[in-house]
Every structure is written in C-alpha cells, then in structure tokens.
C-alpha cells in the first residue's frame, strides 16, 4: 500500500543512523506482502524503470489546480518540486489506500496523453505524505539517504542472507523480486536468468608492517593497488557487461571498453582512464561515471581501460578454485594473446622481503597508485572479504595542516557535540574552505574541539557556527580530485582529522598551493 511506503520514506528521511535505516527497511519487508515490497525495493535501488514523469509534466498538472504565482512562491520556499506539490495540492485523502503495484502499473502503461489526468486523480485520492511518496515513485530519485547497496543489505538482514550472495544474483532479477523475497523467507535461491552474470568479487583486508612480520614473503606476490574503480569485465555468449564490485551494471557509461572485451570469460581488474601508457587521475574517471550517453568527444579525451588483476572464468572453464599463481599465469597468457590496447596487465612487484616492499609502497612510481596488494600464491578466488588471502597495504595518507572555519552538531550520540568540521587553507591572504571532516579524532579530542567551538563562535547560521580561525588541525586524506563544485577547485577523498595541532599558530597552516601540488596532474 502507498501509505506504508510513505511511512517508510518518512522514517528513512529523518533517520541519520545506518543501523536504524536497515531496521526500518527490514521491518517494512517483513510487514509488506509481494509484490508491493518488491516495487518499493526497486524504487530504492533505482531499478524501477518507469517512463520518466518529468518536472514539466508535473508543473502542468499542478497549474490546473493552483494559481501559478502562489505555486511559485511556495516552491521557492519549499525547494523541492514533489514536496511542494504534495503539500499544496488542494484536495485529497478521499480514496481508499492503493497498492504500490497498481500505481506502478498505471504509470508504466498509461498512454502519455492520459498521464496528467491519471496523476491528478491519484493526487486527489491521497493525503500529503502519500502524495509525496507517489510523486517520488513517479519521478525516481527518492533522496532518502538509502543507497542501492543499503537496500540490498536490508534484504540480506531480513532473510539472514549474505549480501555477496544477493549481489551475485541481483543482476538477473527483476522487480518485484518475488523470487528474492521467497529466498529470504527460506525458499530456494533464485536462479539468475541473466546472461553474463556478475560473480561475487574477492576483497582484501588491511594490513601493516607489524602484521606482515608474521608472514613469509615467499608465500606471496605483490602488485600495485591502482586508484581507479574495481570492476568485473564479462563477455559470455556474446553478451558483454562491466560490473562494479557491488554488482552494479556500469556498461552503458563505458562503450569504448565494452567494445574491447573480445573474449569469452570473466576478468577482474581496475577500470582506469588511460592515455597511452599514462594513467589519468581518479577525477578523470569520475567524469565518465554515471552517464547514460557518452559523447564522442569525451570518449576521445577520456579513454577507458582495464588493468587486469585476475581471471575467474575463461572459455567456459571456472578457474576460481585454482591457486592464484596458476590463475595469474593463465591471465598473462590470455592478455598477451588478445592484443587489445585497452586491456593490459597489472605488473607484479618484487616481494623478497617486506622492507623492500615498504619502500616501494612509500614511493610509488605513479601518482595513481594507492598502495600495494599482497596476495597469497595459493589462494583460490573467494567471495567477499576473507582473511588471510589478500591484503591491502595502503600508501601513507596525504596530510595538510588546515584551520577550522565552521562546525555543525552531529547526530545521535553526538547530537550534543559539534562534531562536523569545515576547514580551510590560506590563499591570497584569506582562508578558503577546502573540505569537511567528522571523524578521525578520539572522544577526548572531540570534547576539546567542541569546547573550542563553543568558546570561539563568531557567527551562527542556523545549526552552523563560524569559529575564530585559530585552531589548526592535521587533515589526512586518501586522494584528491579536481572539482568544479568546490570553491577551492579540489575535493579530498576520505578526509579526517588525524591530529590537533595546538603547537601551530593559524598563520603557519598550509597554503592552498601546497594542496594543489598534491594533485599530481601537473595542472
């Protein structure tokens, strides 16, 4: 029923905590019958392929009922089209509750010319939160802070299933996912009908010099950890797919690489933008992501490539049970034989002793390297993050000394504390905001930062406080992308406050130029 779905959206929208979101979702799946829960799941994962109900269509619908000037004033205040229409719609709440499946079928099947009248009739029948849920369903993009993966995790939680197992079959399933829910409730695992399906990816666990000391380097091989996107490239029976490591099909955004998958098998590798031998920074890859159509210009300027790590299946033969060394040998053979410019091998590194590897890790030859991977020679290709087989040993994070500029209160256990910080660097005599961080510090440091914010507030904007620019913090981060959305022109990846620099006056904090120099793309 739409009312239950509306309740769910309401709860999710105001629940900041992941564990509670999962509990709300699992509760919804438990109390909602098929097919409604499946359509709700599809709406959350973005797999509900409805004909797009466009903003202009909705504006036309509302213009029939509400004065245009009153609507404009209201929209200006509310800021969200679906919410404005849901709140301003003059009649409503008269009809009986309606099944999500009926609404989905109507939106999918109505002739385009009849759609506005059908939508208006539905809005007449629903109350405000029902209208909001219906409009979000119709337009897509729920914006309730739930990723596709979190929604699938909730199904796994509900059924006591492994998320990896769900992701393995996900691509072959279709809304309303009756087979998936039957499986979650103790039935048989659905058979994926998809050609070229996704296979669960093998993941690594973090390590360091201390943990490695107990292991013998001769049992392992090492290779670079490239800073792109881990993908699975599949070509089976003429069907080609490129999957993210969570099983999302990202083929459409990479037609150039897809065309190069001239083989019959499944490869594991890193998706990169590569110009000749030169690997482009992560930001270049980001501009290719999430596009439904890729123009010829972008294909030429940002060519996609695959750097192969592993081989799962080749010409019908499943290699996943074979030791890494054997898979690697086969991988080297087939990559050399296919002769595709866009597909190359991730080279192996000498791994005689950990100290030598540490030295390589500390000074990688290419800026688009995040660290090293260490893989047991005998390890089979296993689903998920299995300990003892693959390790990642990341390069030391980049750091800058920045000045705290703004602070905002946290949620839940931190709701009484200023725990979300915006920090800045010097540029032409002023401090420019360069990022936000809300973790990395200890509880004691959080208290100290909270105290500093309260004692040094110079201005308030709603829940945000501007503070006297005096507190210097060391910010650690994993990488840097160019970003047009940020005033500084760059965005940090995984920034966190690694140290409070009470020893350093604000004037000695770093300059923006020092951060830009870390971009490593020469410009």
């Amino acid at each position, binding site marked *: 029923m739409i009312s239950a779905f509306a309740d769910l959206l309401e709860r999710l929208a*105001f629940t900041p905590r992941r564990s509670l979101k999962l509990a709300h979702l699992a509760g919804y799946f438990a109390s909602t019958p098929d097919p409604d829960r499946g359509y709700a799941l599809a709406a959350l994962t973005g797999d509900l392929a409805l004909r797009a109900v466009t903003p202009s269509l909705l504006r036309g619908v509302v213009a029939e009922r509400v004065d245009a000037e009153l609507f404009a004033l209201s929209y200006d*205040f509310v800021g*969200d089209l679906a919410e404005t229409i849901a709140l301003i719609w*003059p009649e409503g709440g008269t009809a009986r509750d309606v099944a999500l499946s009926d609404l989905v079928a109507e939106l999918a099947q109505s002739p385009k010319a009849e759609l506005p009248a059908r939508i208006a009739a539905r809005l007449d029948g629903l109350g405000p939160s029902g209208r909001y849920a219906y409009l979000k369903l119709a337009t897509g993009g729920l914006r309730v802070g739930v990723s596709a993966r979190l929604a699938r995790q909730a199904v796994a939680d509900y059924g006591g299933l492994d998320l990896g197992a769900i992701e393995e079959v996900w691509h072959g399933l279709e809304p309303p996912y009756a087979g998936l829910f039957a499986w979650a409730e103790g039935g048989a695992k659905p058979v994926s009908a998809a050609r070229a399906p996704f296979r669960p990816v093998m993941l690594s666990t973090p390590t360091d010099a201390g943990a490695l000391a107990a292991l013998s380097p001769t049992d392992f091989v090492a290779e670079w950890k490239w800073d792109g996107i881990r993908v699975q490239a599949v070509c089976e029976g003429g069907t080609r797919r490129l999957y993210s490591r969570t099983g999302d099909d990202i083929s459409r955004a990479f037609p150039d690489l897809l065309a190069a998958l001239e083989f019959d098998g499944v490869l594991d590798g890193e998706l990169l933008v590569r110009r000749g031998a030169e690997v482009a920074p992560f930001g270049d890859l980001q501009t290719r992501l999430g596009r439904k159509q890729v123009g010829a210009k972008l294909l030429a300027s940002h060519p996609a490539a695959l750097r192969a790590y592993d081989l799962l299946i080749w010409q019908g033969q499943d290699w996943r049970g074979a030791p890494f060394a054997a898979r690697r040998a086969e991988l080297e053979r087939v990559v050399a034989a296919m002769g595709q410019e866009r597909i190359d091998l991730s080279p192996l590194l000498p791994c005689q002793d950990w100290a030598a590897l540490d030295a390589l890790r500390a000074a990688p030859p290419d800026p688009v390297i995040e660290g090293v991977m260490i893989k047991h020679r005998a390890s089979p290709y296993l689903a998920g993050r299995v300990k003892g087989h693959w390790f990642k040993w990341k390069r030391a994070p980049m750091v800058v000394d920045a000045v705290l500029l703004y602070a905002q*209160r946290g949620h*839940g256990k931190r709701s009484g504390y200023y725990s979300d910080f915006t920090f800045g660097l010097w540029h032409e005599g002023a401090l420019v905001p360069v990022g936000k961080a809300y973790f990395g510090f200890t509880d004691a440091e959080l208290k100290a930062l909270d105290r500093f914010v309260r004692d040094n507030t110079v201005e308030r904007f709603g829940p945000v406080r501007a503070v006297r620019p005096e507190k210097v913090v060391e910010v650690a981060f994993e990488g840097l992308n160019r970003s047009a959305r940020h005033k500084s022109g760059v965005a940090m990846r995984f920034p966190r406050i690694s140290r409070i620099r009470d020893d350093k006056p604000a004037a000695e904090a770093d300059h923006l130029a020092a951060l830009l120099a870390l971009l490593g793309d020469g410009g």
Partner: protein
Amino acid sequence: MARAVGVLFLSIMTQAPPLIPRPEGLYCPDGDFYIDPVRPVARALITHAHADHARAGHGAVLATRQTLDLMALRYGADFTQARQVAEGPVQMGGVRASFHPAGHVLGSAQISLQTSAGRVLVTGDYTRSPNAACAPWEPVACDILVTEATFALPVFHHPAPEGEIAKLLASVAAFPERAHLVGAYALGKAQRVIMLLRAAGYDAPIYLHGALQKLCDYHLAQGVALGDLRPATVERGRKGDFAGAIVLAPPSAFAATWAQRFPDPVICFASGWMMVRARARQRGVELPLVISDHVDWPQLTRTITELNPRETWITHGREDALLRWCALNQRAARPLRLVGYGDEPE
C-alpha cells in the same frame, strides 16, 4: 491587483488611516499609542508576551492580566512605568480598545479598536486550532483586519496536533532506551505540547529544561493542568539516565552543552515549520512534530472570508502569497511590512 490598490488609495485619501506603520511599530494617531512596538514608546498595547511583541522599557502598557504577569516574569516587575489590565473596553482619545482571546499562548489577545474609520481588529499572532493551554480564538467583527501572515503559503496545512503527539508516543515506545528531547519554545508551545501529551493519556513525569520552569509554574498557578513536571537535572559531571523519558527544552538548548547529558537522544522539534523537510533536516531533527500556534493557510483565508473586512492589512510574515490570494478573491489588501517580528519567538 490594480483595482485592489486603487481601493486602498481611495480609502487613505478620503480619511486619515486609523493605524500607521512606523519604525517603532504600528501607531494609532487618534489614540496616541502603539501596538506591540519593537522600541520603547510612551504608551503600548501588547497582544501577547512573546519577546518580539512584548518588550521592556515602555512608559505605560495596556494588556491582559496574564500578558502583564508573563512580562513581569520575563523582564522583572519594573518592565514598564505604568501598567493597566485590559478588562472591558478602554477609551483612549478618540479610540475605544477591547481585548479578545487569540488562542496563541496564555494571555494572548486580539485588539479591537473602534475608530472614526471603523472597527479595526489587530490579531497579533493567533490560531483557530484548539489549544488547551489558553482561551480559544474568538471571531471579532471588523472593517479593517490587521492580520499576521507567519504561515501564509498554501503549502501550510497543519495536521491535527493529536496525530503528531501520537507519533512522539510511538517513537518513545519504539526506543525505550533513548530519551526524547522535544524542542519547544518556552512560552506557549511547551505548555501546549504538555497538554496534548496529557490529553493523549500520557501521565508519566515530563522533564523540563530550567528555562521552562518558571513559565510552567505560572501556567499551573493559572489552572492549566500540566501534571507531573520535574527538572531535567543531573549531578555535576554525570550522564543522566533519561531512558524512555520525554524532556522538553527550548530549541536553543540543543546547541548548548546541556544536551550532552543525554547519552543518545532522539531530537524532536515541535513547530509549524516542521512541515518542510529541508527545514527539519537542516536543524538536525530526527522526529519533526508539526505543531503550530499560528493560523495555517486554510485558517487564515477562512478567517478573512468569514470576517469579510473591507480591507485586510498584513503585519508580518509571508505577505506576498496572501496579497496574491486577496487579489484573486477581489479583496482589498496592503502589506504593512513591519520589521522586528520573527518567524517564531525563541
């Protein structure tokens, strides 16, 4: 629109206006007084005791007994040089003023003025929804309606407050290990929320932030049955155990170290603004409660229709939408654009 302005122009040309917006506030030349002035003046008529309407430092104040009491509680007994309780009509120069319940907060009144230009009704802030913490709004006939417009957008259809309280109680039941911190303005909203909880059958103790204590005590003394209220205090340095409890505090307390005594609170906020998601999220609210002490759009437009004034003047709030509505309904209206009145008092 052009016609509405024409009518207004005519009325001003043929007769001196009974009220004039000035920097100090709304001025009545015939009676030589201000209504809810934002700066100290010689004579002030006060609609209600919220800080943006009732300020200290006037020469003389005419208001309801409860409003005068509340002002004395807030500002001290010497908040004005002279005071007069509004009981029955009061003649001031050529103007006869009378006070009528507004339903907004305890002591709140609409002020009706009999002037040479006709009957003028200054609503102050008001709501037509039932409010167990004060006397209910009364319709007062008028020729000129001077109304607030805080929630004057057609998106504001405030739901029945009972449903919002049910949401709060359901959340308390669902999270018995967490305290529920309800942000509610100290005068009016806090007592309204308490009365709604009591009406819903919630008879457990309700805990109060220190800033609410005096005002709740005054309500109790005035016969508003708020039930068992306790201070939300803890021994110095300890975390409080308010698991499963409902704690009321002014919203500003969420930003203070006061909130740190609660181990893992559910942040709730009782306000008419909570209808808009972005507003609720921006304030870090986990449980928005749409409870308003102002007229919403249907109430506001219904009031204008029912009182059927010759002209509608708008003091503060979102006057653009209300002006548009008046124009669409062939009603003469003008914005006074008074400054100094907040969206809601803190």
